[in-house]
């Protein structure tokens, strides 16, 4: 599903990722961990091409990410559901419209049913007409998850999905992500919270000073 081959990324003269290679198979759930500023977010950004690698090759599903034309980038992103740490919800759109965006971009039909189905999964069906600003942090993160899963992507990227959330809400969010993975969606979670993966049997990719250290 996701293949990194000798990927190198510089920020100005600083090498943030050094010769990174790994492979994530379809349906896997993988944690990318490491201290703050270690390059976890950069690694995710390379997958959805918010950043370009300086060396190496990246493949996501059928997309050779490193050789994609600018005009093809939107089509790569439509196959990826992204859960952002800072939510990235559009403030003047209702919860329904925020979730529906992914479908409208893909010109999907039956938007209403698909949105309500996604909102039901995150237990926010009753908040469909609310605006993000009146929702709690946990609720906003659940809206983001609904938006990420509504178009049924094969890959979900979650960047610090529980940051700024209280422990109970964080657990609930992780349960949700687990459920999504159990339904066959590949999930990559970037986090520095050890609690999220302390007792898990999932694969962990640790980045330390730009080097990848993998442990099962």
């Amino acid at each position, binding site marked *: 599903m996701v293949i990194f081959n000798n990927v190198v990324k510089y920020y100005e003269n600083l090498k943030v990722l050094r010769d990174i290679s790994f492979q994530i198979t379809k349906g896997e759930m993988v944690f990318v961990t490491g201290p703050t500023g270690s390059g976890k977010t950069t690694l995710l950004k390379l997958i*959805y091409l*918010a950043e370009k690698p300086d060396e190496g090759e990246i493949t996501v599903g059928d997309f050779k990410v490193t050789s994609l034309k*600018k*005009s093809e*980038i*939107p*089509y*790569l*992103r*439509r*196959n*990826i559901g*992204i859960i*952002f740490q800072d939510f*990235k*919800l*559009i403030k*003047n759109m209702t919860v329904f419209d925020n979730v529906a*965006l*992914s479908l*409208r*971009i*893909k010109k999907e039909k039956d938007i209403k049913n698909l949105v309500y189905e996604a909102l039901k999964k995150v237990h926010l069906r009753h908040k469909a007409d609310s605006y993000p600003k009146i929702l709690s942090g946990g609720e906003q993160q659940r809206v983001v998850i609904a*938006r990420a899963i509504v178009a049924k992507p094969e890959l979900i990227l979650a960047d610090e999905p529980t940051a700024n959330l209280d422990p109970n809400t964080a657990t609930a969010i992780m349960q949700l992500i687990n459920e999504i993975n159990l339904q066959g969606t590949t999930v990559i979670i970037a986090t520095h919270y050890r609690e999220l993966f302390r007792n898990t049997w999932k694969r962990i990719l640790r980045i330390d000073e730009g080097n990848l250290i993998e442990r099962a």
Partner: protein
Amino acid sequence: MPYIIKSAVKSIYRDKWINLLSMLAIGSSLLILLITFLLVFNFHIATSRLPELFSLVVYLKDNLSEDETKKIITQLQGRNDVDGVKYLSKADALVEFKKTVKSAGVILEGLDENPLSSYIEIKLKKEYVSRPSVESISAEIKNINGVDEVYFGEKIAETIYFLKKSSQAVSIFLFIIVSIVVIFISHSTVKILFFRKKEEIEILKLLGATNGFIRAPFVLEGGILGVLGGIIAITSTAIIYLLIKYKLGTVIPVFEGIVLPWQIMPLSVLISLILGVIGSLIAVGRIRI
């Protein structure tokens, strides 16, 4: 309602003050253009009657036979630029002179013979009443055998030509200026809205929106601003026209005859729509993923 339309309408409502200001600015610019058009159009109607009053006088040589005179008349009648000819013999010219000049008797006193030449008065077709054409026509006629001299009201021809050309030039100039102004206003408005929505655009890009999907609501918004500005302009023009015709016209009769071609109204809105779209297209043209 499709997302793009809904998004554009919502955005206009959300940023209603800046949009209202833009609409008024577009409306005012178009109003200036429409009022100028109204003036030029009515001026054109007024000046289009002037060429009917214009004539070219061809003086014939004294010793021409009747056949030679007829030949010249036929030759003149056959020209493409001539609308009609009127021949006056020496005797007719004298009668005409006495009719128009009251002191003719005093002037002609002591002269044994009629000093006037026979002449042909030529009415040119409207489209030929301009100084350059009249000059070339008169030069051609002057070369005809038997023609002594050709006279025309140079100043009248020149004035008609100048007024027509300058009014056309003024309207073309204003049209260009107003077009640039409308494009600039819609461009600036959309650019401001574009920057205000930078975060929203960033999110759309991350969700996989194409440039077209992101640009479309902005372009539509520019078009709507253009249409609404156009409607403001035509409504104001209609009110001004009716006030001039029916209020001012009762006091100053010349204004009663003012004409407004109503076809210009939908055309103005269409032009405004196109200019609004062009402005917003330029504004969003730099979106890059």
